[in-house]
């Protein structure tokens, strides 16, 4: 039956192991370059700054990056379907306000606040899904729009003020509630010496990885990102899955907001705004880690840790805090060079 086939030669032979050493070095650089940079920097900081070696510093670093990392996981999900969620920072900020409002103004317990925040995140995701899937607005523009709307809504909710325990409310009364102990433990508490927020970050990373890399739902999300029309013709409900990605992104962003609220301990109206660029940066750095060239969960988590190590290390080295953005931006651009410039040359 298939004898005719023996005469065919594949036009492109897959790169076998016997390629030139230069090529092999290059592909190794692309694959492990970022991890190598991280480890080198880590070693450098650890050797030159004794305080960097302190396990408390390391845990603090992880605690610091956990919010951006969790938001980055949501961005990763939306990037997998070929979009991007620019509203994650605003959603996290909304979470901070909703948490404060629930506990301080309405005097509810922490659990109610948690549920309210997650519901708000899911709602924000649904709004994005509505704009993108039903009204067909390009992802980035739609989520930029919701970013403004959500930031504005947050201010309207609290009449433009930060919510603090014991504050005087707009009707003249004193706010009845406060941030509960349990709620504050989300960021400040530890289990077996590890901050709860770091544990949440770790757990969500594992769950997101299983979801995206091992389940059929994750596979479908990637398929949609790579070829939406082929996905539709393979029987996939493309709109439903894209909506799912945005709702999950909203929920993840709200969990980031919970950690942020717990960290700040009050309803700071400006919370979350700086998280957006970090989250997007982390997810973009993630596409270059491991040389995958596509959004992936481990890449995002490692990208967050890398950015954390660099900022902490440079802070200990005495670099002023206001140089932080420059450094993070440079890391991002370096990562983009890895994932676009270098890997493209490899496949050419």
């Amino acid at each position, binding site marked *: *039956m*298939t*004898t*005719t*086939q023996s*005469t*065919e*030669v*594949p*036009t*492109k*032979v*897959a*790169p*076998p192991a*016997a*390629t030139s050493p230069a090529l092999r070095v290059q592909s190794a650089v692309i694959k492990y370059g970022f991890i190598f940079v991280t480890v080198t920097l880590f070693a450098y900081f650890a050797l030159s700054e004794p305080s960097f070696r302190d396990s408390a510093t390391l845990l603090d670093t992880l605690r610091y990056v956990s919010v951006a990392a969790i938001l980055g996981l949501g961005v990763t999900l939306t990037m997998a379907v070929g979009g991007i969620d620019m509203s994650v920072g605003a959603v996290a900020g909304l979470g901070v306000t909703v948490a404060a409002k629930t506990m301080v103004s309405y005097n509810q317990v922490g659990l109610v606040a948690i549920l309210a925040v997650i519901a708000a995140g899911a709602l924000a995701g649904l709004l994005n899904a509505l704009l993108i899937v039903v009204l067909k607005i390009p992802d980035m523009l739609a989520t930029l729009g919701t970013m403004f709307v959500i930031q504005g809504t947050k201010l309207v909710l609290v009449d433009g003020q930060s919510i603090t325990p014991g504050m005087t409310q707009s009707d003249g009364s004193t706010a009845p509630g406060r941030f509960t102990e349990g709620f504050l433990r989300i960021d400040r508490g530890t289990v077996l010496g590890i901050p709860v927020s770091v544990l949440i970050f770790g757990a969500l990373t594992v769950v997101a990885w*299983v979801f995206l890399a*091992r*389940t*059929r*739902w994750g*596979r*479908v999300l*990637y*398929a949609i990102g*790579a*070829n939406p*029309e*082929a*996905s*539709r*013709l*393979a*029987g*996939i*409900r493309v709109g439903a899955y894209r909506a799912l990605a945005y709702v999950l992104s909203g929920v993840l962003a709200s969990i980031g907001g919970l950690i942020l609220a717990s960290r700040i301990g009050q309803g700071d109206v400006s919370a979350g705004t700086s998280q957006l660029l970090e989250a997007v940066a982390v997810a973009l750095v993630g596409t270059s880690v491991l040389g995958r060239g*596509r959004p992936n969960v481990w890449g995002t988590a490692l990208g967050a840790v890398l950015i954390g190590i660099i900022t902490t290390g440079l802070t200990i080295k005495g670099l002023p805090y206001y140089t932080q953005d420059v450094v993070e931006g440079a890391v991002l651009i370096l990562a983009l060079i890895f994932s676009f410039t270098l890997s493209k040359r490899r496949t050419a």
Partner: protein
Amino acid sequence: MSPTDTSAGPPAVSLRGIGMAFGGKTVLESVSLDIAPGSVVALLGANGAGKSTLIKILSGVHTDHSGQVEVNGDPAALQSPLAARQLGIQTVHQRIGEGIVPGLTAAENLVFEELAQRRGNPFLDGRRLLARAREIQSALDLGWSDQVLKRDVTELGISDRQLLILARALATSPRLLVLDEPTSALSAAEAERLFALVERMRDDGIAVLYVSHRLGEIDALADRLVVLRDGRLTEDQAKPFDWDRALRAMLAQAQGAQAQGTRTRGAGTARPTDAKQGPGPGTGSHAGATSASGSASAPASGEIAVSLRGVPLLPGRTPQDLDLRAGEVTGVVGLLGAGKTELARGLFGAEPFPTGTVELDGRPYAPRRPADAIRRGVHLVPEDRHADALVPGWSLAQNVSLPFLRSLSTAGLVNRRRENALGRDTIEQLGVVARDEHSSVEELSGGNQQKVVVGRWLAEKPRVLILDEPFRGVDIGARRDIGRRARALAAEGAAVLVLSADVDEVLEVADRVVVLAAGEIHLDAYGEDAERDRVIRTISASV
């Protein structure tokens, strides 16, 4: 050596011992070929024989080859696409979309190479540009009015776009024009316009290297044919061509290429399912819409799997009735725009029929989306495998399993062992040439990619399999393998629908032939009633 190389003067382009290897694998080996001015040389070869590599060397994409290229008798260095163009070698690539710039008008596209050059006035001079475009169109007799030239290029039909790209290449008065599967997206009538243009080039003394899988075209156009197999030139014939010999050289088969399992070109003979042939009265070739359905000399072999009643295939056309039987391959032939793709996509729920009723195995069937169709066992191999089927960067196995992930998963987790087994099944059953099921689909040649798409839709056994232009850009070996699988599936009791603009392709696999023109059925015949000339006559009469 070359049979037609009797003209005076040096060849337009000659290749001397061209060789090329990728990562230690030889793709071309000492290829020598002279192409005389004013001659059309057809290049044949199975997918993976090295045709694309040779084209890329000529167009200056691959520069690290061995051997020497001579242009007009002088050694030439084709170090870049620009260098190749400047030496007078123009290449028109297979994928039309890569050659045009959407958003620009037809005229701007026509003179695009001039626009793209750095010298001259940086501001667009619309009037001068249109004048130049007009000049080109009248020189080549494209028959385009100013109105057409001023239209956005995306409003042009696919054949006009193909002609545009060709005209643009010709406007530079090239020495050699390389045409890579120029008709693969065109119907027969549209291809005629292109052939006229090729004839004209020959008369103007341009050398043409014509790469095609369509033997009829080569027979009509070429002065000479060469066959590439496993990177070597194995056959060099002057007209008249010995096709049996050429096909043998191409497919490397001991026996004649005619002695294959599938039906052979252009004849109603050697049908594998002779039992199904019933003479019966042939339907009128211009049967009315309703009378055409089911009135063919239907052999009482299979029960009706799909029946369409009052379904309009094109807006404003008479609604059609059509029955598809289980156990047979129904071939639908029609020109581009005849309503073939509308029929396929409607049955698959990709673009639901606006009105009419469809039944599948006697039960109502109205898919609103592909998922509905797949649930009922209706599968579609779409027309354009790159845009509509393959997921780039994914492995062969992952591309096969995509529609059926649910049944490959437990609690949502994809069972990779079963997925890989599915990929290996596809490789085995369709004879896919690939390292293994983990190979990226992009590493495969066109024919093998198409086999992967077909394999996907066989991964779970379909009740109805629709193949829309399954042989486009696919070599003859792959075409036979796919045809054989389609026939085997029908023999197992499925209804198979093959849609194509190529009469021979359809006759090769189908038990029954339906001719579609402008959304209406013009012929529906079995066996000898569906003989080649009659099908072609019906198509030309319906134009």
